[in-house]
């Protein structure tokens, strides 16, 4: 992992730019991928041994399946993005594999099976579906790398992206299509599938912001007045940020989802800041977030109850136990799961995170890692997320074109915010929201969209690290060559 050590020094941070003959690092990626496949396979065997006392029947099929997916992804990267960052694919594969293991582990829970039968009349295991979603995700990953030869092509679709993002964001509000799941309206239901359009909107919106800000950055950055040490933007330049802010507020009010709202607004502020290099935008962004959140919370009971549940999860738990509607014991159950895991955890398959009940394998999946792998294991997972984000930002730094910088920075920033909002919510650091951990959690939209996101980051990193083509020898150059005797 010499690329990591080189990135730690700011003096050499641009060493990959145009470094002719830079190693492609594909073999590093392959070696890391072996670990990323072997670790989940061991974890899978571990769960089977802990629960049934024998190796799970699907061990071979599962190992081969994950290995095949990782292998295909690797071959495609080798072929179509030879100079891509070597860490991104293994890290995502590891998370996806560990996610599958824990989803399978929770499928084995009697408690969850009983709950599912009570609620839906039948229990269907989620792990096979998640494996299918992972396959679709990898297929999309492959598709993006094969079809998107250069990320700058996306720039052409700036305004189409805007329309697409708006449609995606508003879909859950369409009557008959949108569903209210556990108090948040961020789902749509199409032909037997539940889709979370927000996950896809995240990518499409990043493309729009990148395209838009690249064009407008000079106007936004330069045409401003200085006031109390801050550069105040002109009134008309405030337009876009106010529009995005308004949309975020609308999401918060109508889809009652603080997380999605925070994610989009946060991503926009990050990209605005990167584009303009003006700290004032951060100040504006924070102010507007605060005003929006407090304003909405003052009349939106859903947000208020989330905040209450966050401040006093025990009270919430007791109310839920008494059967008072609108309260959930999940937050407290998650805290107990984390606490009961302690430093080293109970070991896979030996915890009781199934007590969380519904969404134990999606929104609350981190609690299972916390309980069964302990503080040590969960910190490792959080660090993996941190590494993905840092590799994404490193890609943004190394990219030469502003659109690529904005897009990679925006996607990485959004990824970081999502991880923070979800993990922070489950661990009780901030109020709980309705999003899921990328790659780990059960859910087709999330897995598929995040593989696409990864493909874009890999494409940008390939462009960034690819050696500049050697200047073509021209006949003219040949002729004007000075020949010394």
């Amino acid at each position, binding site marked *: 992992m010499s690329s990591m050590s080189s990135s730690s020094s700011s003096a050499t941070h641009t060493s990959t730019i145009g470094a002719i003959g830079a190693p492609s690092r594909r073999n590093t990626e392959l070696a890391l991928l072996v670990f990323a496949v072997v670790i989940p396979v061991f974890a899978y065997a571990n769960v089977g041994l802990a629960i049934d006392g024998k190796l799970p029947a699907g061990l071979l099929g599962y190992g081969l399946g994950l290995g095949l997916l990782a292998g295909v992804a690797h071959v495609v990267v080798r072929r179509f993005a030879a100079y891509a960052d070597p860490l991104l694919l293994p890290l995502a594969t590891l998370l996806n594999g560990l996610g599958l293991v824990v989803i399978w582990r929770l499928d084995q829970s009697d408690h969850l099976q009983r709950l599912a039968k009570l609620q839906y009349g039948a229990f269907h295991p989620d792990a096979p579906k998640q494996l299918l979603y992972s396959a679709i995700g990898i297929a999309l990953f492959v598709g993006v790398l094969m079809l998107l030869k250069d990320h700058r092509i996306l720039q052409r679709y700036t305004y189409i992206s805007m329309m697409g993002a708006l449609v995606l964001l508003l879909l859950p509000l369409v009557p008959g299509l949108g569903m209210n799941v556990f108090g948040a309206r961020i789902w749509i239901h199409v032909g037997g599938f539940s889709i979370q359009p927000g996950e896809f909107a995240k990518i499409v919106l990043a493309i729009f912001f990148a395209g838009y800000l690249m064009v407008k950055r000079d106007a936004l950055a330069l045409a401003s007045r200085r006031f109390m040490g801050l550069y105040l933007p002109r009134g008309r330049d405030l337009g876009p940020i106010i529009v995005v802010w308004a949309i975020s507020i609308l999401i918060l009010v109508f889809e009652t989802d603080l997380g999605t709202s925070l994610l989009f607004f946060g991503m926009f502020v990050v990209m605005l800041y990167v584009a303009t290099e003006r700290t004032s935008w951060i100040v504006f962004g924070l102010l507007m977030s605060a005003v929006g959140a407090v304003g909405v919370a003052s009349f939106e009971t859903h947000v208020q109850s989330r905040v209450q549940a966050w401040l006093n999860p025990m009270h919430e738990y*007791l109310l839920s136990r008494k059967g008072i509607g609108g309260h959930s014991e999940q937050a407290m159950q998650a805290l107990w799961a984390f606490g009961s895991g302690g430093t080293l955890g109970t070991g896979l398959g030996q915890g009781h995170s199934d007590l969380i009940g519904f969404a134990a394998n999606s929104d609350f999946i981190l609690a299972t890692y*916390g309980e069964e792998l302990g503080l040590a294991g969960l910190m490792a997972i959080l660090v993996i997320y941190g590494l993905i984000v840092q590799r994404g930002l490193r890609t943004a*730094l190394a990219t030469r074109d502003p659109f690529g910088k904005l897009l990679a920075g925006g996607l990485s920033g959004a990824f970081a915010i999502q991880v923070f909002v979800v993990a922070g919510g489950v661990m009780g650091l901030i109020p709980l929201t309705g999003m899921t951990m990328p790659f780990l959690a059960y859910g087709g939209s999330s897995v598929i969209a995040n593989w696409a996101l990864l493909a874009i980051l890999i494409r940008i990193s390939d462009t960034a690290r690819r050696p500049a083509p050697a200047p073509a020898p021209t006949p003219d150059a040949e002729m004007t060559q000075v020949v010394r005797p």
Partner: protein
Amino acid sequence: MNKPLRRIAIFCGLLVLALLLRDNWIQYVKADSLQSDKNNRRVIIERYSQPRGNIIVDGKAITGSKKTTGTDLKYKRTWKDGPMWAPVTGYSSQVVGATQLESIDDGILTGNDDRLFFRRTIDMITGKKKQGGNVVTTLNAAAQKAAYDGLKNRGKGAVVAIEPSTGKILALASTPSYDPSVFAGNSTTDSNTFVKLDKDKDQPLLNRALRQTYPPGSTFKLVTASAALESGKYEPDQHTETPKRWIMPGTSRPLNNEGNIPCENATLRVALQWSCNTVYGKIGADLGKDAMLKEAEKFGFNKEQFVPVRSSASRFDTDMNASQTAMSSIGQYDTAATPLQMAMVASAIANDGTLMQPYMVDELQSSTLDTVQKTEPKELSRPLSKENAQKLQSMMETVVEKGTGTNAKIPGVTVGGKTGTAQHGVDNSGKPYAWFVSYAKTSSGSPVAVAVVVEDSDANRGDISGGGLAAPIAKNVMQAVLNSK
């Protein structure tokens, strides 16, 4: 754009750092309190996750464990002859918790006790499951059966038998009783059954042997006789100067004897043989409250006993005038005693004046049957000198030989006893309590002292007398102990 990108990278790093700090907070700092939170279901899941250790009588387990179905609490408690043993074991229910021995020695039975730490550590290293230890009691199965069978036919009552030389409790029965097995589980049926038992007006859950105090009636004359002998002013065969009609000091009320019995100027022996109220009432008044109180407290009155299950404190009033002292000295006024207390009185007399601390747990064992803790017999007090104790023994033997206690005679064995018929209720309207306390003696000392109280009976008032109802039960219990030696 690289400067803001680097700042964003730092910001994202801080987000991950915040998550890591929060994780340490809940999984390390708060782990113990979350883990042991009483609302955390893991606490009881863990508790019932393996078969519970057993309570042992005469080398055989009187309890067991049974695998449950349809609940996450894997094992529930079972009892052999539950109603007979319930006053000894108490209950251990998944729905209402545990009491008495099941609760006091819960740590040993579940295997969580600190004294089993070494064992647990070894098991953990060798990969064995944690196992509960055993509680070996001092009880005698035959005596317990004799006691329970005798009471069962008589309605409400209690029996306590003690080995005088050690304080070992040999029998501890109470009726009506309950079968702890019927609410050991976790279901609504279990909880409803418990509620029904709890509300039953016959109070089957009440451990009458330890927790119910009754007016001891004439059996208390043993304490008065002890005080008399200890004062040095009385001898068993010395005539007491008691008039035929004795008016209580400070009143104009005479103290009556039951029926036409030879009490005028009777000796202590004769007065005990016929249970003369006048003689013992007068002795109590003459000795005075302080002397009586001192003697009663030497026998254990006014103090809770822990065997190790707590027993209620028996009562001898500390603030009385002379006539109240007289009434108290024949076990009336507000004198009250538990069956355990009266068994202690008989036991101290039978053990030549030394009262041993009563106990019913002989040994605590680890799951591998190693001794974790052994109870050594302990002297509690010396209510009587050896000579006086032997004098009182001969008086009690007269009672059984040719007095009110002839029903307790056992051929070839010396038996000493005292009957009691305690009146209670407004104007003595309640059905009297029939008492009998006794001991048996062989050439090698006294193997058993016993107290029996029959609380209620369908027989009419005239028939209820300690000698008629309670003595046969005492006899059977003593015989069972003698036969098992």
